[in-house]
């Protein structure tokens, strides 16, 4: 994926790798965990987080559980917005902390 390197600059890299693998197609946990530098329970944990975040959904397939990106596309939209806000809020934080006023406790600072 063209954006993979860029994505690596943000958030948890393993979780993003999990997400991007699912973006290529549905996978059961076992296959998802193959080749990842973390344990299978760790991958399950990441999936739990992704699921709670509304990014992925799962369904039973025999004895396995198959994970996929939210089929309604909302997961995609949410993922994009989530990253967008990371960027925007980082910029906000930097601006709010810019030392234009050494007396940060002083509420009287007027521009």
């Amino acid at each position, binding site marked *: 994926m063209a954006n993979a390197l860029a994505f690596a600059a943000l958030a948890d890299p393993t979780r993003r790798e999990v997400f991007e693998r699912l973006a290529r197609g549905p996978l059961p946990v076992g296959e998802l965990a193959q080749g990842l530098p973390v344990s299978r329970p760790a991958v399950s944990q990441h999936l739990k987080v992704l699921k709670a975040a509304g990014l992925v959904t799962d369904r039973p397939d025999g004895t396995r559980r198959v994970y996929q990106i939210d089929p309604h596309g909302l997961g*995609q939209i949410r993922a994009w*917005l989530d990253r967008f806000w990371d960027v925007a809020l980082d910029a906000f*934080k930097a601006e*709010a902390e810019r030392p234009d*006023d050494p007396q940060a406790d002083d509420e009287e600072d007027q521009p």
Partner: protein
Amino acid sequence: MSQTITPAAIRKSFTVRATPEKAFRVFTEGFDSWWPRTHHLGSSPLTKAVIEPHAGGRWYSLHEDGSESPWGEVLAWEPPARLLLAWRISHEWGYDPKLLTEVEVRFTPAGGGETRVDFEHRGLERFGASDTANQTRTAMDGGWGLILEAYRTAVG
């Protein structure tokens, strides 16, 4: 087979080394100073992003060609503790007056002159239907790359 899910609200919490007053002011009055330039409504580059400082105020951007694009409006203006904005920008980065998602930002004193910022963008289930998902995804993949590029440049 596939189930309908409601996407969780986007939540971000972090601390800034600034008072709630300053954090609120930078977020609103200083909106233009930090908002990423890479994404905007319309075809003309963004020259200024504005949040009008009162409930009912407009949230909009000005562009190089002189045009103005609405984003939504200020639903609650409670300095320095809370700001609630209507985000009516669709996932295709266009203004849709029928779309209502909410962006809430709370500023809480965290001691030592710091402020805890709790951010939430909710109502995401109102975005998009399945039939637009694929084209949206394509558009967003490209768009996100541009934003990150700007971000990496900014942080060095």
